[in-house]
């Protein structure tokens, strides 16, 4: 493949990934409102289009036409930087997620992934750790009590749970022996007894999966860990002073992060795009991507389900849970996994 085709193919992949991700983000908001509404015995959005399917479009238009207020007391450079930083880091993380195996279209042979790097997992961890600054700076530069408290909570929470999150992944890394997300998926191919897939969740990483899910909810500031924006006490937390598209950028970043977490969960624990492949050649090419998307959507659904079910933690409970329960559990999981792999 020449450098010209490589760049062209990369640009096409980036455009497609961004379109799909942003559409996904828009419709995740609708799905969330609909599912939570049904959990609470309501209808949810139902006015714009059949079953409210055009609601995200209406919301988007509304955000664009809202007045963009920049309060006079903010520290402008960082106030403007914060939402951009949040959204950029959230969207960039999708670049290393593999959504399918290698495909050939004509003479072009390419992986279904924007960048197949051998440190894929570390890239995602790095991007999320930079994303913390978006939240931290938003609160600080807003120069308001609620924002400040929200962002202090968010930074402390994200830094604390990042440790449990990172450690929960070590077990998977020991099993697959690579940081490359593609290699991690390939290490999960095959079955036990002919029908149980060898996904990491079935090969002894169930506890790691549990830790990952808990930590990921906290990392993305979702219920039951949504203390940074606890509306009953902090108005809206770190984005209290933001309006119009700047607020929408934080909103999109939150949902994009949800998708990243869901993609990572399905790659690391549920075998990524692996699944039964059958039928004519075209169907065979499409099915892996379908399996991957279904797994991701299942995660998004669980996210929403949890949101509709659980109440919010207290802050001391949150910190104790992270440091005194998840952290030791993750360490124990690493030791047991290492022992099993060493004795195998």
């Amino acid at each position, binding site marked *: 493949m020449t450098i010209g085709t490589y760049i062209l193919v990369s640009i096409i992949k980036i455009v497609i990934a961004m379109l799909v991700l942003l559409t996904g983000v828009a419709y995740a908001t609708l799905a969330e409102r609909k599912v939570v509404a049904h959990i609470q015995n309501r209808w949810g959005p139902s006015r714009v289009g059949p079953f409210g399917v055009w609601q995200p479009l209406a919301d988007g238009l509304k955000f664009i036409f809202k007045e963009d207020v920049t309060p006079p007391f903010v520290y402008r450079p*960082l106030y403007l930087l914060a939402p951009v930083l949040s959204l950029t880091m959230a969207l960039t993380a999708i670049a290393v997620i593999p959504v399918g195996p290698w495909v050939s279209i004509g003479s072009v042979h390419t992986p279904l992934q924007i960048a197949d*790097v*051998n*440190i894929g997992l*570390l*890239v995602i*961890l*790095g991007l999320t*750790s*930079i994303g*913390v*600054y978006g939240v*931290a*700076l938003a*609160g*600080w530069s807003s120069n308001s009590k609620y924002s*400040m408290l929200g*962002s*202090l909570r968010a*930074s*402390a929470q994200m*830094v604390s749970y*990042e440790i449990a999150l990172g450690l929960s992944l070590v077990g998977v890394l020991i099993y697959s022996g*690579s*940081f490359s997300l593609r290699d991690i998926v390939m290490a999960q191919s095959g079955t036990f007894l002919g029908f149980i897939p060898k996904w990491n969740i079935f090969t002894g990483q169930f506890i790691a999966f549990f830790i990952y899910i808990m930590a990921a909810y906290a990392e993305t500031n979702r219920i039951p860990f949504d203390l940074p924006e606890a509306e009953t006490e902090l108005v809206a937390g770190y984005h209290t002073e933001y309006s119009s598209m700047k607020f929408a950028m934080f909103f999109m970043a939150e949902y994009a992060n949800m998708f990243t977490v869901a993609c990572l969960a399905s790659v690391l624990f549920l075998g990524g795009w692996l699944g039964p492949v059958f039928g004519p050649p075209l169907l065979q090419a499409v099915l892996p991507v379908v399996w991957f998307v279904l797994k991701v959507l299942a995660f998004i659904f669980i996210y929403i389900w949890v949101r509709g079910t659980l109440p919010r933690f207290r802050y001391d409970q949150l910190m104790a849970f992270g440091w005194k329960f998840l952290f030791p559990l993750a360490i124990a999981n690493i030791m047991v996994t290492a022992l099993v792999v060493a004795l195998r």
Partner: protein
Amino acid sequence: MHLVLFLIFGAVCVGAAINLLVQKHPINSALSLIVVMGSLAVLYLLLGAEFVAAVQVIVYAGAVMVLFVFVIMLLNAGEEEVLPHSSRVAIVLGVPGLILGLAVGIWVVARYAGFDRIAIGGPRVLSGSEGFGNPSSVAKLLFRDYLLPFEVTSVLVLIAILGAVVLARREE
């Protein structure tokens, strides 16, 4: 391509480092330091050390600097006060001293490493070995060839952590 990227990120790194010193507000200085760390990570990438680059971003730009920013936010540190008359000795002696120090440094490096090593030609991957800089080769070095120094360092870090815990504990 490598040379262009090296020049760009080298310039960004030096620019951010100067900005770090010039800025009056601590949070701007902290953010400049993050930019320095980030561009250093890119320089590592250009050298072919992907793992070190990723760790640089995660540990330094991510974890360490978050704590810096967190402390600045928590203390709500304001703008630094500028003394009305700064030391004249520092200005008179500082600039020539700096130039002299740099010249000596460059001379020493050039004398012992050979002048061709410091020629401007962008970074070069010196090691031609297979898989240089990737996680598994780094792991082999750390856990096989240099296991003892590595473990001793980790004990040192553990002592530092314990010391911090003891110092931070409230007197009963």
